[in-house]
């Protein structure tokens, strides 16, 4: 690694790779602890998955580790508007999981009794009549019951990204857009610099928060394996109408989901198996038709509504659908990862960033962080899912 000829020469206490929600939050919390930070973003701020998601959060997960993490993380998330000075447009319309098989409903009940109730986040198990009563727009044919999580909610991703962005700038974080990370300099097992397409930074720490790209980047730059693979998913939004869908509806059999935004747009998708890897940000008629059919089947009144816009983005999947945070002793000193959120990056990112920063700066590992260390892929001690929800 040369000394950065022709590049902007900088020095910083830490470099963060990726200016999505996770990277920006990490940069902000590092800066708040007095560290100088440079952020490399290969595109524009939020250009990856942070601005392509459905903007929903939940505390209910199919295992203890994620649920405990979520309870804390969501509390943090919901407190952000005031702290960041940007309105996150938070609301709690809840999540409604529609169930089409009795045995699945039973598993939910068990999960509620064994996990969610004891943790103080009970869900309501609804009968078909109760569904009809509370969510009259749903076609209950084939549905045996539902699980309603009133603690779950929605937010506006763009404003939270902007909040972290402006707050980070306030603290002097240097956010470089269109600056793609190119190399990490290691000397005697320690990080000494990091460079991008247009900058060279002397630093002792680098945090990989590059979402779906993290696995590929860490492999190519440092030959480190973190099992994060991109999975493309398509999503769409309709023209706005008066409020109708008063919760976030998920069909547990078809992986269909639908909700309504504050502006009135109906947002949703049906998740089809798509190829892996960095497929282009495109859409398919195959998906579009499947989505429209599921929408009309489950909520017949939506047949007259018009699809306004569709797009796609990547989930950053790990083998146990849980994020990876921290570092391994076998890695060069100063290399950290905060990624692989498997679709929960916006819900968990801010809190996870705070915990990671605490670990980086104070060396204190929060007990909530421990299950998510990269160590688990070495020992094979993965997070077990009682129910994929």
């Amino acid at each position, binding site marked *: 690694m040369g000394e950065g000829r022709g590049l902007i020469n900088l020095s910083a206490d830490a470099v963060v790779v990726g200016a999505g929600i996770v990277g920006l939050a990490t940069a902000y919390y590092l800066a708040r602890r007095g560290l100088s930070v440079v952020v490399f973003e290969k595109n*524009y701020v939020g250009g990856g998955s942070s601005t392509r998601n459905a903007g929903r959060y939940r505390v209910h997960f199919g295992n203890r580790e994620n649920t405990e993490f979520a309870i804390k993380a969501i509390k943090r998330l919901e407190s952000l508007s005031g702290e960041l000075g940007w309105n996150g447009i938070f609301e709690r319309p809840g999540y409604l999981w529609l169930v089409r098989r009795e045995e699945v409903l039973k598993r939910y009940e068990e999960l509620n009794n064994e996990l969610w109730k004891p943790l103080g986040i009970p869900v309501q198990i609804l009968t078909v009549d109760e569904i009809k009563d509370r969510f009259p727009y749903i076609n209950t044919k084939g549905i045996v019951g539902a699980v309603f999580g009133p603690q779950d909610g929605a937010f506006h991703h763009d404003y939270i990204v902007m909040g972290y962005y402006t707050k980070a700038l306030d603290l002097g974080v240097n956010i470089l857009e269109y600056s793609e990370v190119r190399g990490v300099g290691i000397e005697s097992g320690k990080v000494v610099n990091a460079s991008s397409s247009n900058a060279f930074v002397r630093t002792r720490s680098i945090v990989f928060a590059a979402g779906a790209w993290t696995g590929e980047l860490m492999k190519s730059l440092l030959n480190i394996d973190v099992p994060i693979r991109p999975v493309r998913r398509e999503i769409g939004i309709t023209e706005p109408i008066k409020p109708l869908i008063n919760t976030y509806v998920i069909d547990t059999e078809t992986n269909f989901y639908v909700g309504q935004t504050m502006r009135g747009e109906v947002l949703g998708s049906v998740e089809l198996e798509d190829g892996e890897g960095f497929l282009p940000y*495109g859409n398919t008629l195959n998906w579009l038709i499947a989505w429209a059919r599921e929408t009309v089947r489950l909520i017949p009144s939506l047949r*007259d509504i*018009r699809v306004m816009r569709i797009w796609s983005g990547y989930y950053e999947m790990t083998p146990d659908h849980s994020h990876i945070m921290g570092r391994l002793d076998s890695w060069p000193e100063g290399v950290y990862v905060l990624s692989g959120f498997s679709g929960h990056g916006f819900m968990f990112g801010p809190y996870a960033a705070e915990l990671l920063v605490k670990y980086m700066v104070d060396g204190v590992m929060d007990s909530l962080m421990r299950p998510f260390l990269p160590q688990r892929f070495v020992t094979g001690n993965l997070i077990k899912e009682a129910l994929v929800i």
Partner: protein
Amino acid sequence: MMSKRPWVAEELGRGNYGVMRSSRYGEPRGFLCCEWWCEGYWASSGYYNLCGDKPTMPRKTTSVPSILRGLAKPSSFPRNRLLILLWPIIRERVRESLNRSSIDELPAISAKTEYVKVDSDVLVVGGGLAGLSISRELAKLGFKVVLVEGEDYLGGHLIVDDVEIRELGRGNEFVNKLGREVENLVTVYRGVVFDGFLEDSVTGHSRDFTKLYIFSYKYLVLAQGFREVPLVFPGNNTPRMITGLSALKLVKWWGYRPRRLLVWGSDDWGVRVAMNLAQQGIEVYLGDNSAIIRSDLYRDRVGSSDVKVLIGTNIVDSKDTGDGLRIVLENLRGRKAKIRRREEVVVDAVVSAARLPVIDLPAQLGASIVYAPEIGGLVPRRGFTGDLGLGNVYVVGDAGGLLPEFLVIRQARVTALSIGAREGLVGKDDLDREVAEFKKDLVNTNSSYYNVLLRFEQGLHGTGYYAEPNVTHVPMWAAAGTTEDVERAIKGADKQYLCFCEDVTLGDVLEGIKVLMHGREVRVKVLHGEEEEYKSLKLPSMERIKRVVGLGTGPCQGKFCLVSTNLILSFIYQKKPGEFGIPRIRFPETPIPMATLAGGE
């Protein structure tokens, strides 16, 4: 189509120009556009078929008291401390206050919908002069051509144009005849909207929403022409602004009888709009901020017509007085101007003939969009043959840059021969000869036309050897004008609406830029010694601006605002339009109902 008098014509007849209400503030909204692609804009406020005989409107419209307007502004709404504090209490009210239709008010979609597969050698999108011309040429070469037109009629803008056009005669006669000829030669789908591109399909849908078309083609020709967009001037949200094409349709087909109109835009089309309206006995003013009438072809004819000319002026204020729109115009060149001219006119409405090439589809396909002020601002980069360099996609006519009609016809022939040559149906010599003729005509008409296309072919489009934005076709905002003019115009930024779907003003956008620049004030006036710093100053992209203020996120998909905002910002900050870029244009071009997509029943 010509017989049924639309509801909106009745309303205008009784002086009600504010037929719609904005979604955010609920104030009367009088920008009127009676073309198929405007449906998205209407839908943002819950209106449908506004120019049909029975439009759908929200049962209940609300309005925000002016005292709360400041809080609701797109630029301050997400950051207002009071709103953040009160959010849990007020969010339901905010949600309910937006003017939208409820689900049961939406126009019902037929119970039966179907998918229709359409195969072709060449698919032509757009049935105006360019699309018709190339369809005829291609059919003559033996291609199986399918033409898709969003309107229920062929002929595009010329359909209502009675003025003599060089080498064509009367526009409407020419295009009517051409349309009939083409309908006998190729398969024509009228009233079909082209949706755009998916990975596995290219689709369209019928405007009655009963059919989803799935197209296959070997070559694609984009001939979508130009679009007239809302003018941007202080108080342009005041009810009373109509696009040129809509105004002509309203007057000629539906008996709208205004006494006085101000037509803005003095290129070929603008002048013809003015002359057409004057022919109908309407008192017409023709305004533009150019130094002279832009149109080379009609400059002399305007002088000898009844049209009153207000060239070299900007609209600095406007107000709906109830019985007319009072407009104040001032000449350019700022305070230092020796002659200060101030005019006031009262008109029934402003007619926007500010036109921009339709670049959505090339942009969606990933063609590079470049800045060429000579031919209309932002255009897809293409060669003399219209080849977009994407393999099998061509652009003809105004969608590829605004050219006089006889050159459009000429280019359509070049493009057809070029496709023919690729298929071995046309000899290379024949194509070369035709291209040479086309080049000669370009040079003879206006050498800058030739130069700009040459620049595209030779790849100099990005080098920026030409002057900084000299934006001729920006709605109202002029090429001419000093820093003082810009500073003065920006003073009214909060009253100049850019995005009519989401009520985003120029002021909101400038504020959004300031936020994205971390509070750094970007001054319009650059002092000596600051040039270098200013040049290296990187302003935020339109993609990010969009995410801060919601510009272009309504159901019209930014058709009304994205290009004009880009050009206006480039002009204000003296940056190249490419530095701001335009946000990614997504599928579909125009909203499609779920029922149409789901098919069957």
